[in-house]
């Protein structure tokens, strides 16, 4: 390997220094900054606090889901079900609310059903040795189908304010959903980077056989990551339902691809063993920035997708050129 020579310092230890160092490793940060600076210079409305909060708010659903996806991808797995699970858990929470279940219970229903669906994937992947791609694809279809079946295709709406505030309320100037998302990122970041469990997630993804030989409970680790991903999708479902004061079986179609993209933009590899929550945060924000820029600059709809693709390509291109440069 050419990389063999210039060993970049690893991310270790606490405190600011370590975050700086971590950022330094995440070459995608350059792409992130490039987009931010461009928008700041060309769009007066960009650097307002309202706008920045709106980016965070708009990124909250994909962010929460991408956190779960990061755990899964670091183990070398994939969870394609998250978009459908967001829809399914949303309508289940909605059904619970319509049946006058108290708000906290309805939230638990949403998150719990998400965790269960993750548990189903976990079971198939660890005990039945099935491919996560296919299992989660099957769950993608099944959860979406169930969302239609249980609602009869209808939209559920008019939930109690206490519920809606989770996704759509504010705490002072801050959107509650954005605060929850930041909390999720913080906790997940600590878990993945600083705990024994996190280290085991990396080990399982980096070399599953080695992990097993070293006595790491591979099956349990895998099971937990899918359950985390499912539960976070459930949380996403609750937030989305609250934000829209309604739950639709068709919600969040294709969310999985965006979430996975954010994780991969953030430096994770689908082969496992690599990735970080900080990277995913950057990936999510890059996607959020692109969409924000497209809206602020009122880019004509026909051009939106093209530019989205081109900017993502550009950001990752900078990243890979950066990595090349650092190697030599």
């Amino acid at each position, binding site marked *: *390997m050419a990389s063999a020579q210039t060993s970049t310092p690893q991310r270790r230890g606490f405190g600011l220094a370590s975050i700086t160092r971590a950022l330094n490793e995440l070459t995608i940060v350059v792409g992130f900054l490039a987009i931010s600076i461009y928008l700041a210079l060309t769009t007066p409305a960009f650097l307002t606090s309202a706008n920045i909060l709106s980016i965070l708010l708009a990124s909250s659903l994909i962010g929460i889901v991408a956190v779960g996806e990061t755990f899964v991808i670091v183990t070398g797995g994939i969870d394609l079900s998250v978009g459908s699970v967001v829809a399914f858990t949303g309508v289940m929470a909605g059904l619970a609310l319509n049946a006058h279940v108290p708000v906290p219970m309805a939230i638990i229903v949403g998150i719990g059903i998400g965790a269960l669906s993750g548990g189903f994937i976990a079971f198939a992947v660890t005990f039945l040795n099935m491919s996560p791609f296919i299992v989660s694809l099957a769950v993608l279809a099944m959860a979406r189908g169930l969302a239609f079946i249980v609602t009869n295709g209808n939209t559920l709406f008019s939930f109690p304010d206490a519920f809606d505030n989770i996704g759509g309320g504010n705490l002072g100037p801050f959107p509650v959903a954005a605060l929850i998302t930041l909390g999720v990122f913080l906790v997940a970041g600590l878990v993945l980077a600083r705990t024994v469990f996190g280290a085991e997630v990396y080990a399982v993804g980096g070399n599953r056989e080695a992990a097993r030989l070293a006595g790491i409970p591979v099956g349990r680790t895998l099971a937990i990551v899918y359950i985390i991903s499912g539960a976070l999708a459930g949380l996403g479902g609750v937030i989305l339902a609250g934000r829209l004061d309604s739950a639709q079986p068709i919600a969040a179609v294709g969310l999985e691809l965006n979430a996975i993209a954010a994780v991969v933009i953030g430096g994770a590899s689908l082969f496992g063993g690599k990735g970080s929550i900080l990277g995913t945060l950057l990936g999510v924000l890059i996607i959020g920035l692109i969409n924000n820029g497209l809206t602020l600059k009122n880019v004509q709809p026909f051009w939106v997708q093209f530019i989205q693709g081109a900017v993502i390509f550009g950001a990752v291109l900078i990243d890979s050129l950066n990595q090349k440069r650092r190697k030599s």
Partner: protein
Amino acid sequence: MANLLEMQAISKGFPGVKALSDVSISLDKGEVLGIVGENGAGKSTLMKILAGVFPPDAGKMQLEGAPFAPHRPRDALDAGIIVIHQELSLVPDRSVAENIFLGNLPRGALGAVRRAQLNRQAKTLLERVGLAVSPQARVRHLGIAQQQLVEIARALSRSARVIVMDEPTATLTTAEQRILFATIEALRDAGVGLVFISHHLEEVFEICNRVTVLRDGMAVETRSVGDWTEASLIQAMVNRPIDALFPERHAVVGDILLEVEGLAAPGAFSDVSFAVRAGEVVGLGGLIGAGRTEVLKTIYGALASSGGRVRVGTRDARIRSPRDAIAAGLAFVPEDRKGEGLVMPFPIRSNLALSTLGKLSWFRSILAPKRIDRLADKTVAELRIRTPNTRQVVQSLSGGNQQKVVLGRALTTHPRVFLLDEPTRGIDVGAKVEVYRLINALAEQGSAILVVSSDMIELLGICDRILVMRAGRLAGALPRSEFSQERVMQLAALG
């Protein structure tokens, strides 16, 4: 009092192979048991059963008199049985420290990893095994020998009743080997039982108390070390006498075939110049991390050079990729057979065919399965690769036999210049002699051979000249007349 460990009448079969039949061994506290045998004799399989990697088909085990039947590696670890497996099992993108404590990280409040403690303890362990890398370095950046030392450090990190080392020294140079032996002695004196597997018989004689010989999946004999002689041990292993470990070579040294001038690779080595002539076997010695692997890979076009020239024959060779190198008549055997040499899940025949697909096909495009089979059968026979058939995936071969597949493929392109990085890594004595014969034959046919080996005796035994590297530079060259371990060590360590 019961023995520390008893393995009784263990049998194990794989599809098409009986790997172990009725093997019994025992181990005492404070003892080092050597296990030797040809490639594929069943040594690693026996140890994997002990480690709980898979269960035996028959037989049982006892640990200090109590029945012991691990269902998974974790059970064995919990029982204090630590196995350093022959195939390295590290997580490439994690730090050295984390790899040392893999599965056993110091846990603080809320499940947090105690980083400070981790790094401190890792540092101590690295010192104990003589590895001078930062605990925070990523394993991906380590050479294969350094990785081996990390594995050893991992074994030392756990409190053990039994430690098994499956060919720990295959890639180590003398310096690290000395340190390892000191460690083994300390462990032994502390009452740990050790199993030591090696194809370096002199090591076995030095460190072991008793030695068991496995042959064809059966335990042939166990004697205390004093009751074995090198000859009797080899006889027991291969069931035939071997007259000389290093067969004579009658090669005529001819023109320069490989000439390297001022070669450099960023961060690895610089200003390396030497030449190898037809019929010549040149060794490249040095300590771990001296840059030997990089020199070979740079010549071969696998790493980018930052200066210098490589000439093959009389022409400047513009080698930018391994493909160019092969076209120019070079062959390379990498040190890391699992990562760089083989496509592990593919059959032997596919692996052997990789470099000559063009020739093994019609119109250089449609595969000719018969030709592939012929090549595979021929190579398997020539190198005595032990396998039921050539459709067996290489993953299922014993380590030494895997190594032979890598070597075998290098021969298929009929190269004039061989770059061999640890070519006999993990190969049994009998097979080593065959490899040496092969090297001799190649030299006699006019090939030029450059060998990197951490086995100094091997270098001294088979080379015409030895180049010694130290910290990325050529520290000197020794002609055969000046060969001695001391001289090589001196150059390697002091320059």
